[in-house]
């Protein structure tokens, strides 16, 4: 019965590039105050959707409302409602931390008398007060990302959209960004929408997750809801050389499992009798004399949900896209 307002409403969103339909009719409401994760394999239409939310490209049909404001009709007003951290870290290496903040503050038309205070606050928020006059080019990846996050919050937006905010960061820096995001979500009630390829990140951070594939929203729910969708059975995972993978998948299929081929492993939900099934698989592998590196069974993660739904891994490892697709086609 909660009357949560919608921060972002995506209605019947379609984007075609020539014959190619990148986004194929997405409807999605992101509630005020939530942390929402948008997931999807490369080429799924995730970036195109984000670019339409940002008003960088205009939809073929459908619309995006940001705090009720239509992005296509009133982009300048809608953009004031939203802060953005893009995939590329765009703090300017050749400007100091302060100059970076000042230029963007001015572009967001923050009045000069407020700007100085906002710059101080942003430096504090990003823990960079001591680096005010240092050139951003000298910063570590984590410092740059923190500066960027606080830069995007200078104009006090109600929504913060982050496109892969922790890609390329080490564990320590990633944790710092998570804490920063949780803090601004809690203390300033800012709705956070993020795309990520780290599924454990979505699992830990997001209240709700949407999975996009082939331009469609194929799953939507809390992380635990999504985990339940895969049937709660444990997952069997076999790593081996790439050439051996199709044979391993065939073995799984013979036993009655539904395997997916990934770049360096075969993954299959174990079913109701997972323990029995893994024994059968081990026996069959040893009979077939196929060399494997590892075989294991674990509780389902968001990764498994993602693999089951999209047939591919979220992370961009060379070749995974292709083999993932092949696996998916066979799975169907």
């Amino acid at each position, binding site marked *: 019965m909660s009357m949560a307002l919608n921060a972002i409403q995506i209605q019947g969103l379609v984007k075609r590039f020539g014959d190619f339909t990148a986004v194929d009719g997405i409807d999605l409401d992101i509630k005020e105050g939530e942390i929402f994760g948008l997931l999807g394999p490369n080429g799924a239409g995730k970036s195109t959707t984000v*670019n339409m939310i*940002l*008003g*960088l*490209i205009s939809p073929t049909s459908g619309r995006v409302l940001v705090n009720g404001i239509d992005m296509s009709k009133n*982009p*300048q*007003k809608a*953009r*004031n409602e*939203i802060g*953005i951290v*893009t*995939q*590329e*870290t*765009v703090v*300017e290496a*050749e*400007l100091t931390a302060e*100059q970076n903040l000042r*230029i*963007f503050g*001015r*572009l*967001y*038309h923050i009045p000069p008398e407020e700007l100085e205070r906002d710059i101080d606050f942003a430096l504090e928020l990003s823990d960079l007060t001591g680096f005010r006059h240092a*050139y951003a080019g000298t910063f570590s990846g984590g410092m740059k990302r923190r500066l960027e996050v606080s830069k995007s919050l200078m104009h006090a937006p109600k929504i913060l959209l982050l496109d892969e905010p922790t890609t390329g960061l080490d564990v320590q820096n990633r944790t710092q960004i998570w804490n920063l995001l949780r803090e601004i979500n809690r203390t300033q009630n800012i709705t956070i929408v993020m795309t990520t390829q780290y599924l454990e990140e979505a699992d830990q951070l997001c209240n709700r997750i949407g999975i996009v594939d082939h331009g469609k929203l194929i799953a939507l729910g809390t992380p635990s809801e999504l985990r339940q969708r895969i049937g709660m059975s444990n997952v069997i995972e076999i790593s081996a050389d790439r050439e051996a993978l199709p044979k391993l998948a065939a073995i799984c299929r013979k036993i009655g499992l539904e395997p997916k081929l990934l770049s360096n492993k075969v993954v299959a939900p174990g079913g109701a009798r997972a323990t029995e099934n893994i024994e059968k698989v081990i026996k069959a592998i040893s009979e077939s004399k196929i060399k494997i590196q590892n075989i294991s069974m674990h509780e389902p993660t968001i990764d498994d949900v993602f693999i089951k739904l999209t047939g591919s891994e979220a992370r961009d490892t060379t070749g995974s896209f292709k083999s993932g697709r092949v696996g998916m086609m066979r799975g169907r």
Partner: protein
Amino acid sequence: MGFIGDTYTLFLREMLIFKKNIRVNLPRSLIFPLIFIVLLGSFGNTPKNVPVAVVNYDNGQAALNFINLMQGSSAVKVVSQTTQQGAMALLSRGTVAGVLVIPSGFSGGQEGNVYLYLDNSQPQSAEVVGATVDATAAKVGAGTVADNVNGGGRGLVSVISSYVFGAKSNYLSFVVGGLIIMVASFGAIFSAGFTLLSDRELGNLKAFLITPINKFSILLSKIAYGTFQSLLSAYIGLVIGLLYGATIGAGILGLLELIWIVFLVGLGFSALAIALAARVKQIQTYALVGQTVAMPLAFLGGAFVPVNLLPNFLLPVVAVNPLTYAVNAVRDIMIKGVLPINTLVSTSAILAVFTGVMMVLAYLLFRNTGEHL
């Protein structure tokens, strides 16, 4: 504030980056003019078949001999004119590089003068004409017996040369005049284009596009930055040129006119740069595109060599190239010492039209830039 304010903020940002990189930016603007002036300023090439108007008020045999001898060398091409006024008109239009006047009574006396007027805004050509006439005078002056028997010979001939445009003939001023316009156009094409490209590559362009500003203030700030770079490059080129010995015939007023011309070139070529860069994704590609456009335009605008030395089939390109007019105006200012007001107006108009067309083109190509990130 609004549009102008946003443009100013973005321009400010370009200037902050420029300042940060000044140790690279300044030498880059310095090296090119220095090499250009030192190398090109030190030697000229020798043109052939330089057109010379000849006004023969004498029509005696000695005068005809003089003209025939002159024509015998492949250095000059004689264009006969009946009146001095007509010949001088050709000279001021740049159709001929010199006017030779043979006064009546030339064939009669033992000694005589010929009058030579040279266009020092075409220093190489003027030099060739002067040398040819001097050589001819020497030959005629040492007239052979046969000539005398025929009644066509005569004694000593003095060549009285004068330059039509007050200032001294100065090949260096010629080079520097071309150089200024060349570095101005290069400065615009490369700075405005590269900053757009690097902003696109680094994601800054996207970052600006998602702020609530009008995206054309991005375009305008790049054009402003390109124009700044044009003025800076031209200024450095001019200072080096002046230190090396070039002169500005038209003085302080001329300097102001020169800055104005450079400003218009900067504006037009920065807009051209944005139009060229609007759909290019890679810096390397733009470097190629920029070179392909910048070099020929500078060359065909007469920045290196006088356009009257170019083959005929290139002349239409010369005529539509805005740099031709800019180069001519700057040379008028530096060498002729005066830029007639109507030339200033027509040159400004041509450059303004060029700028306008390029701005519209840049606008159209940049309009959907969000789709081309």
